[in-house]
């Protein structure tokens, strides 16, 4: 498998509370450490509100214009409005029309009220980040995106499809077909599904991965956060269980979780044909977790080494 850091866009996704934001930041930091020009961004940022992703770099929100936010990582806030401008200027070759369209308050209000068009704007901005060039070189070799927590990811993944089937023809459809091709190219795009070594999150990650694959989004990796190796052999485990029979023994709950989740993680990796990367962390702050995880991603070719398994 081609290294994750050789892709152009990493979509970091997962259900709420699995540590997705820390992993996204960690991937960007690790990519910068091996010399990639990497840009980190998030969808769904609300201007003016504290962004947890920006918080990893000690900022309140990502900068409006691309600049370094720390440790060699660049940031730029994705905005639907910027995306609309990019999109319209690409599909409408007639300059005065673009100006008329963007100057119309009612039209921009409509585009904001209709979520598909908002997301389309977001999409256009993201693609632009990935393909933008400066002096004949890619401005960003790699774009790492912290995706929204809920079912939204699916929304974004199916958006081109939805709009193409909705609009059938016309300039918007031509623009979106290009987007769809880009997102489905496994050399360029990989979804990184973040999960926890627990039964429910693993099954939710499995559903998420299946839905993404169904929509043509390639899965690049399954990343397991807050992982701890199950460190006992059969004999030790049996002895601990008999101790537990005598009275409640702290640690057994999580140890049992580590044991049970291992098999489920292996199955998930096989089913999605995606390698498994496990990161251990403790309950530190998000910023510490991001660096702690980045430290576990060895230099060279993306997450690998002792923690990686199931590479195909």
């Amino acid at each position, binding site marked *: 498998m081609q290294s994750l850091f050789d892709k152009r866009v990493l979509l970091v996704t997962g259900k709420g509370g699995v540590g997705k934001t820390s992993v996204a930041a960690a991937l960007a930091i690790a990519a910068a450490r091996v010399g990639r020009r990497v840009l980190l961004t998030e969808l769904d940022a609300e201007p003016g509100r504290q962004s947890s992703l920006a918080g990893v770099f000690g900022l309140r929100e990502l900068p409006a214009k691309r600049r370094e936010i720390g440790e060699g990582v660049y940031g730029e806030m994705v905005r639907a409005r910027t995306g609309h401008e990019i999109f319209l200027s690409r599909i409408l070759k007639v300059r005065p029309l673009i100006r008329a369209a963007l100057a119309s308050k009612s039209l921009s*209000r*409509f585009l904001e009220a209709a979520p598909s068009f908002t997301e389309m704007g977001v999409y256009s901005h993201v693609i632009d980040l990935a393909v933008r060039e400066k002096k004949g070189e890619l401005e960003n070799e790699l774009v790492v995106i912290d995706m929204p927590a809920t079912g939204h990811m699916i929304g974004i993944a199916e958006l081109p499809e939805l709009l193409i089937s909705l609009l059938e023809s*016309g300039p918007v459809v031509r623009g979106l077909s290009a987007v769809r091709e880009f997102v489905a190219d496994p050399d360029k795009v990989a979804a990184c599904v973040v999960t926890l070594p627990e039964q429910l999150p693993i099954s939710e990650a499995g559903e998420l991965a299946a839905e993404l694959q169904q929509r043509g989004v390639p899965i690049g990796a399954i990343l397991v956060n807050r992982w701890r190796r199950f460190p*006992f052999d059969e004999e030790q*485990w049996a*002895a601990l269980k008999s101790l537990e029979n005598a009275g409640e*023994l702290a640690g057994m709950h999580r140890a049992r979780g580590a044991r049970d989740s291992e098999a489920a993680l292996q199955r998930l990796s096989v089913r999605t044909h995606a390698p498994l990367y496990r990161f251990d962390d403790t309950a530190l702050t998000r910023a510490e977790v991001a660096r702690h995880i980045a430290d576990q991603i060895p230099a060279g070719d993306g997450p690998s080494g002792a923690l990686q398994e199931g590479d195909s």
Partner: protein
Amino acid sequence: MTPLFERQVLVCCGAGGVGKTTVSTALALECARRGQRVLVLTIDPSRRLAETLGVRRNLDAPVAISAETLDSLGMSGASLDAWMLDPQRVSEITVDRLAPNRESAERLKANRMFRNVSAMIAGMQEYTAMEALHEFSTAGRYDTIVLDTPPARNALAFLDGPERLERLLDRRILALFERAEHTSGIRRAAAELIARVMTAVFGEKNWDDLQEFFELFAPILEQLRQNAGAMWERLDNPELTGFLVVASPLAESVADCEVFIQEASSRRIPLAGVVVNRVHVGHPEAVMPRELIAARPDLRVALERLEQFAEDEALIAARDAAAIHDVQARVGANAHVVALRDRGAGAAMLSVLAGVGRELGEALDRPLRRS
């Protein structure tokens, strides 16, 4: 004041991924156990929950949870219906009911833009949920309706839904879609310019469909807005309604919950309680592995390794306890704060949910220590 479990409407708000549907179902089970005739209404539920309840999704009307299922929960004779709907289906049902005539209903349902209306229009899901609530709460078939609000990025989305749709119903926006031939004078010139831009953006056929969509749908949206307005007046009434916000012990969720609490108080929403879900509880009576090393030197290596897991457990339990403390400080004495421990995959089992319901019931029955 009417006890929470006897109010007509219980609304569960919360961001995606906190287990809102689980809490709604548990609440509904508890209301049914207490003898109410209950409907649990969910928009866009997970497949798993529908399977748990033994109910199919997207039916045209609510269905009863089977007597066998209720018997197995020790709730023989209880009455619990569920309706689990895809927002698009709710929109269609709404159009059937509210369109001025059959012909325009059929034309609208055949319109390509309408066929994706729930994805196209922000706030549509919240609106359709309100519409369904409005219909059932005026029909009198149920004593209690538990509304599981549509999946959203944050708990506030449900309160904000109407406002978002309002923006789309703005006359200036609707004017964009007016057909040039229906206007005259300056407005006609403006309409023609807009038509040129829109045709260039969307293509001619799509522009046509968009115009038809707004022409047919605007009056229905207007009706929806009125019904929602009427419904909101009842939702404001603590005799009739109770709001619960569901959160998880994670920092973002606690912050989201805080925003909701502030808004609820400024909008005079009757907030009955905050449910902190998926809490990891500590086991103070559990023995720490290292304490056993002296007695079992043969297991030293294993016990030392287990100690790490025990420390993890303690850290997580402490973090969750701090989150609950935080929520309590924000809520004050005005509403309940209920912590529900993490049930793992058990949350998909009806018997577990019935137990959760009972726990919720006991906690929410306790009198508040108002200052």
